[in-house]
């Protein structure tokens, strides 16, 4: 270069920095900068001076510009690679946020745990109460059944006492085996009814495995008329099965539920019609 000083003072380097040169002129300056350290130094000083000038005229924009900018570009978050850089306000704020969020989640978890345990206890209490109620219910329904049976027996007795003329009364007397035993049987041929008067029953109480069975003798053959229990507090009239043309009634002690044929040596009472 003929005269470096003239070149430096020509103003072309300033124009280069201002971006006010044609492409050709630009390339020329860049070549000179590579070739002459003085040119490079001069350019640097111009740039630094202008950068400082710009900084002295700086105006702070509002925060939202930064947020918008960061949200609208693609970046790679390299947290682990550069820990010194990541003390930025945003990441600190994030960390702070996650801390609180974590604490809040823990509290919620704890609270739900307590509520769950409490609910479970209440549920168990309800199960117990339900079981008690069910057992009470069963008790009542048993009582109702018992009362219904009693009512039915009482009604039968009432029918008998309302119209005694229609009934033929047969008194069964104790056999050799049980001389004390006796039982009153009422027979109504018209209504086809056979009833026994439990209040007149005078027989030993049967145990759980046995029941008394009433038989009718028809043409010398025994016919089953049903079973009954003998208890101390038995009352009322119990309706039994009916058979036509019976000549006699007899009671035997049989296994629970009754037998097909009477066990003759357990004959308790017998009476002819």
């Amino acid at each position, binding site marked *: 270069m003929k005269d470096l000083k003239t070149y430096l003072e020509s103003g072309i380097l300033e124009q280069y920095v201002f971006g006010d040169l044609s492409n050709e002129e630009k390339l020329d300056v860049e070549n000179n900068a590579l070739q002459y350290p003085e040119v490079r130094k001069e350019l640097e000083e*111009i740039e630094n*001076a202008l950068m400082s000038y710009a900084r002295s005229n*700086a105006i702070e924009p509002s925060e939202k510009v930064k947020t918008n*900018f960061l949200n609208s570009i693609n970046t790679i978050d390299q947290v682990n690679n550069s820990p010194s850089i990541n003390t930025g306000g945003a990441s600190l704020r994030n960390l702070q946020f996650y801390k609180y969020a974590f604490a809040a989640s823990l509290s919620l978890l704890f609270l739900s745990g307590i509520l769950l345990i409490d609910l479970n206890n209440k549920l168990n209490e309800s199960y117990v109460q339900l079981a008690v109620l069910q057992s009470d219910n069963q008790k009542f329904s048993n009582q109702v059944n018992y009362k219904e049976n009693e009512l039915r027996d009482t009604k039968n007795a009432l029918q008998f006492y309302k119209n005694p003329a229609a009934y033929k009364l047969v008194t069964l007397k104790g056999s050799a085996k049980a001389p004390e035993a006796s039982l009153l049987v009422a027979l109504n041929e018209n209504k086809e009814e056979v009833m026994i008067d439990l209040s007149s029953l005078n027989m030993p109480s049967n145990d759980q495995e046995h029941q008394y069975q009433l038989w009718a003798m028809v043409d010398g053959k025994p016919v089953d008329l049903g079973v009954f229990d003998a208890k101390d507090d038995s009352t009322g009239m119990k309706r039994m099965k009916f058979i036509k043309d019976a000549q006699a009634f007899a009671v035997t002690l049989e296994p629970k539920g009754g037998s097909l044929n009477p066990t003759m040596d357990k004959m308790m009472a017998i009476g002819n019609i």
Partner: protein
Amino acid sequence: MGLKTKITLSEPELVHAIQKKDKSGAEALYDMYSSSLYGVIFRIVQHEEIAEDLLQDTFIRIWNSFSSYDASKGRLFTWMVNVARNIAIDKTRSKEFRNSSKTEDIENNVLTLDKKVNSEINPEIIGLKDLIEKLKPEHKIILDLVYFEGFTHVEVAEKLEIPLGTVKTRLRNAIITLRKVFN
């Protein structure tokens, strides 16, 4: 401001971080240069909201076309201020912009701007403001037209009705004054 930690990196570190598309690079880029670039853009468009939109556009353009920056040909800021200025000037030439902003008195704008700059709490500026006053007014007006408003030398010569050579000399002298003050 000032309470918040701003990220600062050396220029080679920053360039490297931006090339890697590192998020902290984007934050550092913004923290280090947003106010300087905003100062330039605001001077050109004279409208806060528009200037902030353009500042955002500027950073997005810088980020997305960073491959066109060549560190061997100059400092990063020189390249960025050119991007910012071009975006702002393009805006002022758009029809929509000329319709919306009434031609305002330049003197008024300078007044509001000076007020705005002064109101900023920027420790770097304190003291420097006086030194800037050393710039002769006829130097300062040319420097500001070219640097902040993107006038070409020829346009300045026409606007101020002075020879092109005088523009170049005054501009050079203005920069020499700045160099004495800052460097």
